[in-house]
């Protein structure tokens, strides 16, 4: 292996492995990736484990245990560039639902011996614990975006990641707006593009797994969505989905709940 190739380490924190699988699912591009990078640590892909420091560390998952808090700090020390991969790593993910409730009560309900568990009260994004150089959203991430980010790092350029809404991806692929056409609640207008509008194209509303856009108007969207609710509280549940702990979605859902009280 050429000594000049940048080294890559891929780590898993609290997550489902789906984002790592998106890397492995690349098939056609995986060989190029292995050709461009020296994969030093990627348990999902290879048993080889070589010690750091690494040029690029990709981290999947959120921080949910005291041990993970320590581990991510060590990884940060070992990594020149740290990429948070996927919605767990960027917003806390689905397990961040616990942040809205009492984690201890949940543990007592689920486990016979909760005293053996070592957990934090919250599931949080990597960036809440260490400096992150690049965030890639999605549940799971889009493999094209993963390649784009790695290509950008290797070639020393800014990655081309869209800052606009999912609406543009719907229109570009000819998908008819499910919100307007069918009255289906959809938070695509406030969600970052990148997925390719998978859900609306399958006739479902977007539930925001790529996270909120930087430039959005959640107050107005909320007014629209609350009128379309098929069951009470549907809007809150939409915001409090996979990216529910992302600040923009979290705050608007909190506001709605406060108003409901």
């Amino acid at each position: 292996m050429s000594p000049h190739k940048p080294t890559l380490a891929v780590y898993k924190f609290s997550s489902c492995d789906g984002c790592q699988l998106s890397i492995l699912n690349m098939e056609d591009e995986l060989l190029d990736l292995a050709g461009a990078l020296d994969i030093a640590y990627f348990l999902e892909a290879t048993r080889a484990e070589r010690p750091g420091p690494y040029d690029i560390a990709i981290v999947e998952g959120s921080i949910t245990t005291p041990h993970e808090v320590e581990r991510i700090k060590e990884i940060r020390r070992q990594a020149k560039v740290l990429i948070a991969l996927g919605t767990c790593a960027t917003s806390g993910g689905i397990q961040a639902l616990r942040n809205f409730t009492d984690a201890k009560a949940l543990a007592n309900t689920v486990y016979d011996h909760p005293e053996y568990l070592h957990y934090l009260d919250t599931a949080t994004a990597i960036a809440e614990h260490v400096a992150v150089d690049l965030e890639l959203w999605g549940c799971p991430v889009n493999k094209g975006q993963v390649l784009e980010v790695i290509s950008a790092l290797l070639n020393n350029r800014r990655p081309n990641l869209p800052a606009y809404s999912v609406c543009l991806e719907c229109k570009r692929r000819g998908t008819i707006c499910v919100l307007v056409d069918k009255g289906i609640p959809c938070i695509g207008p406030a969600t970052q593009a990148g997925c390719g509008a998978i859900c609306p194209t399958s006739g479902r509303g977007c539930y925001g797994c790529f996270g909120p856009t930087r430039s959005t108007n959640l107050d107005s969207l909320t007014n629209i969505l609350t009128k379309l609710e098929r069951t009470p509280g549907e809007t809150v549940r939409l915001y409090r989905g996979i990216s529910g702990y992302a600040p923009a979605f979290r705050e608007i859902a909190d506001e709605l709940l406060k108003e409901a009280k």
Partner: protein
Amino acid sequence: MQSDRSPEIGSTVAIQKNVFNSLLSKLKEQGYEIVGPHVENETLVYAPIAKLEDLPRGFVTEQEAGSFRLVYTGHTRYFDIIPGAQSWKQYLFPSRAELFTLRKADGTWNMETPRPTAPAYAFIGVRGCELAAIQIQDNAFLRGDFTDPIYRAAREKAFILAVNCLHPASTCFCASMGTGPRVEGDADLTLTELEDVFLLNVGSELGRNILSGLPFESASAFVLNAANRGLERAAQQMGRSMDTSDLPDLILNNLDHVHWREIGERCLSCANCTQVCPTCFCWDATDTLSLDGNQTRRERVWDSCFNPGYSYQAGGNTRPTIHSRYRQWMSHKLGTWKVQYGTFGCTGCGRCITWCPAAIDITVEIANLRKEIR
């Protein structure tokens, strides 16, 4: 009296509805890819069609600000449906198109430019507002000093069968924009659907050629009258209207008005209005570079003045607020477009009203701006 000679250009003939299938077959034989309105996945799209039965016979659309519903009423007309979100723009100005691919070999970049390979499209059922929109995009893409090769490749070959609009939607305001419901622009054939027959006005040699050999009769005064009455009724039934008498000055003299901020509170900046608009032409170019840095593919994609990156340059964003983006859009459509190209950038098709999730209505906003100024 049936005839199988060629009709004169400018004349109007009547054909039995089932003859339309022969017309489509003829287009197909001549190599056209035929596209038209079609119901797919319970909604209305433009898609390839092969026969009259592929058209949305029996369907109507109910359109309101922020709401679209496809409804089956069982009526017997093929061309009665008012368009949905899609427009012919997707064929002439595709949402994504490769510009070129560069490959690096021995330190030099070699360019591969795909020759524009657009098929010859036959557009079936182009409304007056839509034909006007195509002509507006012609002004932007086929200028004297610059012609867009992708657009030109598709546009030059396109066969247009236009349709006079007899039952406009409640979001339509083409009559006040002067683009409909009667087709005013140049089409190869212009169709009016009556209960028993299609009337076809022959607009070009190509249209005449497609009709030649098919059984047609010259349109009687009776059916021509029926068509005219229908079109007059349609103009009166138009759901909305736009007063253009004080445009573009109303907008350009009030760019600092507080009304823009008020719209900005409702606007999602989602860009839907610009993407469904049949005249919006903005685009962006992107590079996709291979991991080894030796190959890049340059593409063009639809862009929008509502996108945060649209007005970004080193040093900041020219339009950081949502209201400034909405103002850019509307002041372009109904204001500066006229300075640039001599027409408004709006044809009154109503798509931006129907497909705005926030139900922002361009006709209402103009009326309100006018009211607030007085």
